[in-house]
């Protein structure tokens, strides 16, 4: 497990300060989508060996949701971004 996470607001912090809130890759379907699509969004998850994107809540720090891109095999952390900033950036594109 990646043990040091560099929070964009607080700096380098130990993983004990965070709470992992699940995969960040699935995108919420629209309200009118079929049940199968919603089922897949809510329940179906990969268990990736390698690169993964997760929501990490910085519970003991800035209390922001972060998107951590890390490797489950090598424990390497590639990037930490504020989830709200990322959503705003995606919406702008």
């Amino acid at each position: 497990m990646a043990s040091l996470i560099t929070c964009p607001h607080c700096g380098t912090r130990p993983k004990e300060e965070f709470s992992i809130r699940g995969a960040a890759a699935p995108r919420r379907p629209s309200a009118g989508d079929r049940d199968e699509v919603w089922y897949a969004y809510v329940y179906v998850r990969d268990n990736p060996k390698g690169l993964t994107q997760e929501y990490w809540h910085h519970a003991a720090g800035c209390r922001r949701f972060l998107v951590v891109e890390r490797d489950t095999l090598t424990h390497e952390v590639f990037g930490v971004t504020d989830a709200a900033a990322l959503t705003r950036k995606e919406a702008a594109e």
Partner: protein
Amino acid sequence: MTLHLLHRHVLEDHLAGFETSPNPNHVSVVRRPVILSVLAHGDLEAFAGRLAAFSTMSARFCGPGEWLVVGSAAGADELTDRLGEVAGLSVCDQSDGKVVMAISGPSVRKILAKCVAVDLHQDVFAEGEGANMLCCHVACHLARTGADAFEIIVPRSFAGSVFEELMEMGREYALTASFAQS
């Protein structure tokens, strides 16, 4: 005799009766601090500038758009009023819910190294900086107020536990504690 719990500090039982003359490494507990939680909406950098302009208090960064304002000179009401006048700021008085411990001395970083898992070197955590972090497993706010001086703000109900652990960690450096004189 009536016991006035309102003005009884939560660390009274940990401190009262154990007073000694302060050693170089010392924890000073503020008896009646003024602490306000401030949330901002809108242009966050402009708010940071406006908060820094207040001379009677210091704004401690917690996260984007969130500060803990610690004052001493002005009363809580006056400070709340003045901050309330700034449009876009929400102010909540936390004075009764938080405990401020000021720790200072030549060995302060060695003591805090056993309490927090954050690099407190001057180059990374400069004077005037502050952040939320885990201190003795409790979510608290740590701010650097001088080269060898820090202030820890803990939730009131955790203050006893954090204080005891802090004193335990400081024992080898002859850490003493007392209420602040003012």
